């Protein structure tokens, strides 16, 4: 029996959860969306200038968000990452645990598959528990969300936590809802404007 089946957590939907998160954002919080469906659903949930959409560099959503969090400690930074992406860069969990930025909230969208390439199962799908890995990496505020209400509660809780938070959500196998325009310079420039680092010409 797989670990995923043993979890007492509802299978939710990426777009729905992303929309719930975005609806809560009132303070120009930064959001970094990992490659593929994760940032497609972030785009579809309604573009904001404080969103950064990744177009490659699988696995770097959490490191990029960590960099933003270090540069702007007064701003809340969210990072949305797929389970397959995180598997590429598990070491970053230890780095984040060591630096322990209070303003970083991470979400793992875990469907156990590489949905976008044809729904092949990840090597972790049947055996590993990403939240257990995060806890063992030193990220004490790591938990699976039991359902949508629990996800929203964990998001709220992360805003007042004394360290970084990681929230695992089990999601279905649906593809992303939208498609992010693939213009890396414009994405980067708008993000910097959204963070107050740049002014438009």
């Amino acid at each position: 029996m797989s670990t995923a089946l043993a979890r007492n957590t509802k299978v939710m939907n990426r777009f729905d959860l992303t929309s719930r998160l975005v609806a809560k954002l009132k303070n120009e919080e930064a959001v970094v969306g990992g490659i593929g469906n994760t940032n497609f659903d972030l785009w579809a949930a309604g573009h904001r200038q404080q969103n950064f959409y990744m177009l490659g560099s699988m696995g770097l959503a959490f490191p990029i968000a960590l960099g933003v969090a270090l540069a702007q400690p007064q701003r809340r930074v969210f990072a949305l990452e797929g389970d397959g992406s995180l598997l590429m860069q598990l070491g970053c969990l230890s780095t984040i645990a060591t630096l322990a930025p209070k303003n970083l909230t991470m979400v793992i969208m875990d469907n156990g598959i590489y949905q976008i390439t044809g729904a092949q199962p990840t090597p972790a799908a049947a055996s590993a528990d990403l939240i257990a890995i995060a806890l063992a990496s030193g990220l004490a505020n790591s938990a699976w969300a039991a359902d949508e209400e629990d996800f929203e509660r964990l998001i709220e809780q992360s805003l007042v936590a004394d360290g970084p938070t990681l929230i695992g959500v089990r999601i279905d196998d649906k593809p992303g809802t939208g498609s992010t325009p693939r213009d890396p310079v414009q994405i980067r420039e708008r993000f910097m404007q959204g963070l107050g680092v740049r002014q438009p010409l």
Partner: protein
Amino acid sequence: MAAAETALSWHQIVLQTLKRNDIRLVPYVPDRVLTPLIRNLHADPFFNVFATAREEEAVGIVSGAWMGGMRGAMLMQTSGFATLANVLASIVVPSQIPLIMFVSERGTLGEFNWGQSLVCRTMRPVLDSLAMEHHTCTRLDEFEFITDRSIKQAITTQAPVALILSPLLTGGKTLDK
């Protein structure tokens, strides 16, 4: 001025030049040659310096920090650079991130590990294929000029740069050290 500059060691020059250019964030994956630099960076409260598990991670952190308004530079050795082709091509170059990289050059001028010497040969072709600025630093009397100007150029042109620290500059690593 010139005499005072040349009296500094290569790693003192790196530290001072980073500071002069307000580069505070320095993630690294260590190398024997970089040890005195890493030690001195840790000892200076101006810097936020820390190890990452992998070089790609440091690229992500420096890129995120740049977009958030904080300047950074990363330290690694040649074999670490060899892990970066994907992230250089998919975020740093197309997003115009002024990633400043210091690469301790292993694999040449006295290398004793065949794997290091082979992986070293991949470094400049990767940099050239992405049309990335890079300099091989061999002389102490030129080093401050190259480092300071390259950092300023990276930031003003929003383009990455690799400063390759040759054994001619650092002494390198040999079998007996």
